[in-house]
């Protein structure tokens, strides 16, 4: 009986997790293309050219809490035994970061900004599952959005 439940969770996790992931990636790709003209920089200070034309500055942020499915967690548990890349968690973190950045961009567009400077990403695992395995992670992205009047650069 116990084995049956585990197997069910396993299958559910695999099926739903996979569809959810591919759907999420599709939406990420779509929105990334859509917000492509909103420039983001990891550099701390804008160029003077930009600074002179800036009208407004806002702190913008986006956050997401994302969780891994049962199947992937199981695979990761196996991997822990042998060592090596945990590809199952790699996609989780990748999705989380990209989603957080997209939400930050949405926030910036809401303010009518066209550039974001000093983008910082922060990751925290907020709930640990059984046996110290990571259940879900929070990714938080923030930066300074600027409304730059006439962009002299070519993007």
């Amino acid at each position, binding site marked *: 009986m116990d084995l049956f439940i585990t197997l069910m969770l396993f299958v*559910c996790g695999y099926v739903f997790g996979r569809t959810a992931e591919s759907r999420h990636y599709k939406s990420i790709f779509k929105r990334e293309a859509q917000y492509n003209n909103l420039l983001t*920089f990891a550099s*701390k200070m804008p160029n*003077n*050219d930009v*600074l002179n034309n800036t009208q407004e500055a806002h702190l913008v942020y986006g956050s997401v809490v994302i969780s891994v499915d049962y199947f992937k967690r199981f695979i990761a548990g196996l991997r822990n035994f042998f060592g090596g890349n945990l590809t199952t968690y790699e996609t989780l973190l990748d999705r989380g970061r990209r989603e957080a950045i997209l939400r930050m961009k949405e926030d910036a567009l809401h303010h009518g900004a066209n550039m974001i400077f000093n983008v910082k990403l*922060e990751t925290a695992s907020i709930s640990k599952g059984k046996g110290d395995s990571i259940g*879900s992670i929070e990714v*938080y992205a923030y930066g300074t959005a600027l409304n730059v009047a006439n962009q002299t650069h070519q993007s």
Partner: protein
Amino acid sequence: MILTNIENVPGKRIVKHLGLVQGSTVRAKNVGRDIFASIKNIFGGELKGYTELMSESRKEASKRMKKQASKVGANAVVNVRFATSSIAQGAAELFVYGTAVVVEDIVYDGTEHTVIDAPLAQSGAQPSGSVEAPTATTPSAAIDMRTSHTSADPDAAYRKPEHSE
């Protein structure tokens, strides 16, 4: 109240530093969300309840920071940083801090602001107008600006946020 996480407020000039301000909240997740989250943990995907909870708490923390900043008479906070730490099982502290400053609009009308105008004019002559490569003169220009305007404040030297990473 203007918040930025860069060293100044673009389009404005820092005239006074008022020191570090901070805001924090400690939040626990509730049972209902926990149950929902544990189900979601099987299927994977976003835990919307937690996302909401975290962003709500961050807003609360930054609200407290803004309150503190306005209490000391600031109208902007620069160099804002967010930090998260889990202090107990199921509870997290969200912490925001930054430098409270007084800013005013830059008026380009006379020779009054030569300190600012000099580095700006200098970099304007540079051929690389692209934003992708900020020039090295930019941060130093900002520091010049700041020190020159805070010199009236005797404690300014202790308060300068020079902790660049």
